[in-house]
């Protein structure tokens, strides 16, 4: 470990911020400002990490390693590669935006700020951990602050939603723990005492296939719950809908990516043969998720729930691209993880703004907003188009790569998946039309205020990135490529 430990900084700055907030006096504005500054500082460090990242290096960079429990080979082991880099930056970007969006929070602000910062720390830890026990600890550490965020500051059915979220995710997490321990014990049988991912990369594929299958299954359940893969998705609509705006943004923007990250980081490279065998089923589940999510979204009357179900659909695309095992599919899938974070995060922010003004999320309560709030509806349109994959915006790049990558692996799945694009257009444009177009039917809509400066500031980075990635995805793709192809080469012995 030489030089400044940038990755640990990414963890310790939010931690320091949380401690600072805990000690600070109970003044709401001060606390929110602390949260904003701390998360901006974290974002700054993540940009430094982005800049320092060597594009052509397929391995882990900025690695830090300290022994934690020597008898067990558990280390404090952090590192980023092309796969985790963008997720780290995305996470660090979304949190300051969340703080800016949290002006509506006025009860127990101290706990709110602390919970958000601890969540940031835990999610960043998940993406950077290279030791599987450390990964597990961070994975579970996300649970408590999220559960508090949904349960205390959420909407009407928040208690039900948060308990469901907690139990579901905990169950998956515990199963993953058993899988990790079995992996460690199986590897120990060959004389290695380690929990390090790098060691597992070498040793895991050599284990007996039966053992590999069990561990794969255990890990897959945990990741499938997170993604979520149909039929483990039932926690998502409630959690996303009942969470406060910041909670929904974090949930959709980064939490779901923990699942897909788990698949590409652990399930695929550690157990390549099993992954190959499981691929058809996973692709099938992905397609089901795409179509089911789109279908259910189309019939939603609650705008936020519509966006929540759209996440199921979009993550189905990501999963489809991953399990196609082609370079294009995987890259599209990785990019789409980022894209979804940006566009769905923006959607939740916009819906949150809608709720703040009108205290309702039912689509039928709206109509004609476009004429009173043109900027708002313009932004909403851009984000909706990005979400459905209009060429020129980021969603198109991701979905294009995914579908063409999937087409090489399984034509039927790709064709059905493409149907999901149509579905997305259906539910998004229809919802947009009902909300923003047409005559103004209700008086309360006439006084709908357009975006304030603060709201414009917090949406701007997302819009910029949506357009930027849409027209110039190169810098993002080229950083991912080496790591992704390295992962895939272990899988198929050399490309599609």
């Amino acid at each position, binding site marked *: 470990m030489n030089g400044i430990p940038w990755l640990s900084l990414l963890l310790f700055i939010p931690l320091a911020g949380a401690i600072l907030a805990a000690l600070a006096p109970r003044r709401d504005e001060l606390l929110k400002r602390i949260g904003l500054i701390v998360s901006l500082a974290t974002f700054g460090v993540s940009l430094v990490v982005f800049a320092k990242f060597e594009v052509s290096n397929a391995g882990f960079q900025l690695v830090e390693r300290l022994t934690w429990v020597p008898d067990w080979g558990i280390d404090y082991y952090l590192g980023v590669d092309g796969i985790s880099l963008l997720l780290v930056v995305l996470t660090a970007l979304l949190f300051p935006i969340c703080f800016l969006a949290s002006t509506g929070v006025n009860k127990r602000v101290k706990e709110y700020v602390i919970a958000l910062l601890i969540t940031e720390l835990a999610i960043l830890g998940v993406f950077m951990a290279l030791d599987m026990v450390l990964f597990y600890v961070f994975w579970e550490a996300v649970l408590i602050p999220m559960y508090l965020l949904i*349960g205390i500051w959420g909407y009407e059915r928040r208690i039900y939603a948060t308990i469901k979220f*907690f139990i579901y995710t905990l*169950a998956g997490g515990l199963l993953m723990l058993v899988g990790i321990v079995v992996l460690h014990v199986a590897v120990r049988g060959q004389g290695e005492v380690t929990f390090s991912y790098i060691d597992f990369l070498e040793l895991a594929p050599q284990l007996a296939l039966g053992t590999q299958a069990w561990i794969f299954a255990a890990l897959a359940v945990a990741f499938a719950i997170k993604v979520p893969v149909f039929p483990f998705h039932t926690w998502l609509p409630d959690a996303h809908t009942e969470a406060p705006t910041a909670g929904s943004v974090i949930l959709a923007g980064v939490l779901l990516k923990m699942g897909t990250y788990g698949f590409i980081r652990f399930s695929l490279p550690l157990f390549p043969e099993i992954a190959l065998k499981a691929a058809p089923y996973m692709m099938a589940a992905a397609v089901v998720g795409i179509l089911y999510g789109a279908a259910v979204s189309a019939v939603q009357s609650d705008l936020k729930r519509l966006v929540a179900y759209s996440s199921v659909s979009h993550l189905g695309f990501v999963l489809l691209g991953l399990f196609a095992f082609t370079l294009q599919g995987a890259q599209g899938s990785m990019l789409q993880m980022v894209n979804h974070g940006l566009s769905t995060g923006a959607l939740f922010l916009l819906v949150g703004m809608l709720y703040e003004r009108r205290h309702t999320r039912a689509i039928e309560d709206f109509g004609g907003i476009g004429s009173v709030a043109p900027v708002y509806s313009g932004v909403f349109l851009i984000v909706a188009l990005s979400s459905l994959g209009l060429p020129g915006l980021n969603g198109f790049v991701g979905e294009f790569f995914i579908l063409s990558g999937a087409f090489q692996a399984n034509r039927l799945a790709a064709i059905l998946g493409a149907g999901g694009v149509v579905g997305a257009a259906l539910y998004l444009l229809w919802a947009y039309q009902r909300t923003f177009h047409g005559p103004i039917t209700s008086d309360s809509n006439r006084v709908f205020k357009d975006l304030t400066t603060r709201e414009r500031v917090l949406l701007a980075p997302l819009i910029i990135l949506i357009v930027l990635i849409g027209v110039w995805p190169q810098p993002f793709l080229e950083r991912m490529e080496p790591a992704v192809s390295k992962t895939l080469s272990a899988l198929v012995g050399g490309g599609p």
Partner: protein
Amino acid sequence: MPGTEAWTVLLPELVIVGAAILLLLVDAAVPESRGPHLAVITLVALVVAAVLAFDQWGADAQLALGGMVVSDSFGVFARWVILGAGALATLTAPGYLKPRNLDRAEFYALLLLATTGMTLLAVASDLVMVFIAIELLSLALYVMAGFERGRLEAQEASMKYFLLGAFSSAFLLYGIAFVFGGTGTTNLIRIRAIASVGGLDDFRLAGVAVALLTVGLGFKAAMVPFHMWTPDAYQGAPTPVTAFMAAATKAAAFAALIRVLVLSLPALRWDWQPVLAGITVLTIVFASIVAVAQTDVKRMLAYSSISHAGFVGIAVVAASRSGVAAALMYLLVYTAMTVGAFGSVMLFREGQSERVHIAKYSGLGIKRPAAAALFALFLFSMAGIPPTGGFWAKWYVFFAAIRADQAWLPIVAVAGSVIAAFFYIRVAVVMFMQDPPSDDDMPLDPSPGLRMAIGISALVVVGTGIAPGFFLSLAEKATAFGP
């Protein structure tokens, strides 16, 4: 002098018994004195005993007192856990007893005598000694459970505990008789020697003997289906006694179970492993499910204690060095969590008594955030959420079980944990996510001893969470059994 070799092994116990007698005499002589001297004497005795016990750490194991007692690191670790539980309970006791006019020497003397029984159980190397120790600790606990003479639940608790306990002692004794019949000795070391050369192969009643022993010891450890006394006893007893019972008895009972089954009867593994595995599965699942239905916090914690016994049971089923180390580590963390949880229950006052109904905890996180946060810490540790000590304890148990090719047990344990998580977080939900009733001031009842006990427990839970390696290696060193 025959039979007194290395009697210094029992110095800790002698100190404790001496202190108990001293307390009784002092109180008989000067009955109306007030002040914390009773608790102080008790604490000093426990600390001195702990220091004396440390003397035996790391030394070669040796038998003492005619083979009745053994001095080894396992015994030291178990003793420390028990003495720790006793000390923490003593810290919490005056605050609870004084307002109810129950702060008497008898309480502390009984606590010390119960502790003696437990520590003797932890170092016993003869089945007769096991029995004596169990009787000693049980009798003291029966009385302590019913200490609040005025409260009907206390009498019920004590009565139930006594009746069922007497019954299970009979089972234990019968099991000892069978083992004696089969081997001709009650000494655990000699039994192991005889069993390992096949002396028990022709003994048809070996399975029966093992089953009876498991029943007797399983009762004390509160495993399903011998757990019927636990919810009532824990609910009815004065809460310091509950904390003490929950933590220390389990440590002692499992120490005995490990010595009898893992140390002395590994040859009969094919008899007791499946039985114990079945019992642990039942324990974890049943206790977790029933706990979900509880509305009384003490009763819920009682069922949660039962389910934790199941986890320790998994480590025992593993029947390996790691299994024993995992069991010890779990008992250590479990003691801290349990005393912390029951201590938190003692903290929240409602009128003159404790708040026991879960609905009365609503909004506690808003009015008393620090106290509620500590309670939540203990609950989350019990649920096994990292980075608390409870997580590492469970993890180590899983590891030991998987290594011993019993991978199905952790899966069941995971299922139980998920069910259990529900009632743990329900308390947190009630505390943090519900609004407090406006007329309720939620006074706290923090005697200095209670504060210290909760603080120490929290430190242990957090410490084992952040630096598990230290405690894990201690537990592993403690697997140096008797000769």
